[in-house]
């Protein structure tokens, strides 16, 4: 009962805020709506017994990643209204139709496929506690994907540093410049 009430509150908030993300003209407003959206999703995760995921959603998405989003928006400037124009005339109409078709198919199938027994609760997995159960799985069965995650993260870190970093003065003066100075324009 209580989870239905929470769902009925958080679900519409998630949907409504998602609509506002794409309808806001101002990118910063979109980002703020996105925070609300992510928070509503976090509540839904908790509602589904995935407490750790809910908290992670808060910390990583609503916290860290939104900071990144806002920095990028501020980096690019928020008053770029020319970006809202359409390159191909009927793009918006076509993508709208296809998007609604895709969403409609998914909703229809998920509604029909919903089966209480197949989508059981996490009661079994959570028997020793949600975080504890996760820890056991993560460090036994999924240890290899877990370690690969660290490789993924370091690739992301190197990539961001390469693409975003300006060259320092020492570097410009050093040997490196011969290799990685102004690259020749083709």
């Amino acid at each position, binding site marked *: 009962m209580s989870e239905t009430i929470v769902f009925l509150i958080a679900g519409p908030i998630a949907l409504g805020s998602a609509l506002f993300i794409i309808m806001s003209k101002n990118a910063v407003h979109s980002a703020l709506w996105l925070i609300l959206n992510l928070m509503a999703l976090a509540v839904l995760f908790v509602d589904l017994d995935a407490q750790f995921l809910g908290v992670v959603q808060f910390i990583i998405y609503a916290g860290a990643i939104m900071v990144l989003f806002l920095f990028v928006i501020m980096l690019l400037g928020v008053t770029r209204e020319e970006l809202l124009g359409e390159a191909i005339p009927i793009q918006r109409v076509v993508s709208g139709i296809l998007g609604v078709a895709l969403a409609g198919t998914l909703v229809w199938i998920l509604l029909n496929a919903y089966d209480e027994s197949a989508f059981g609760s996490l009661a079994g997995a959570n028997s020793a506690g949600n*975080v504890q159960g996760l820890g056991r799985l*993560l460090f036994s069965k999924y240890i290899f994907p877990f370690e690969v995650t*660290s490789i993924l993260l370091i690739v992301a870190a190197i990539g961001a*540093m390469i693409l975003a970093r300006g060259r320092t003065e020492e570097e410009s003066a050093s040997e490196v410049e011969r290799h990685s100075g102004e690259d020749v324009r083709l």
Partner: protein
Amino acid sequence: MSYYWQYGTLGALTAVGGAFVVIAFLGNRLMRPRKPRVEKATTYECGMDPVGEGWSNTHIRYYLFAFLFVIFDVESVFLFPWAVQLEKLRPQGTVLVEMIVFIGILAIGLLYAWKKKVLEWVK
């Protein structure tokens, strides 16, 4: 769900916090005198009028720090399930090494950033 009451404290705190803001502003509004004038509605009642827009572009160096923050945030999230279970998992050495490898690989990324002077504030 049976243990929703555990969130009761959080809910109560949210409710009290919200009520505090509403009551404070409402009380303020009820008790203060209201004599609106055009000049009072401007941003600065005295001094220079603002020129241009309030937005300004940030430097990309903020982005790098935010990005590194995300990466180490993700790492710290993985530390939680590890930390609560370390004592119960056997053999402990394996589980310890698993996390050391994970952190070690990311530490190399940090070392790289440090040596490449990414962590220094570029003026």
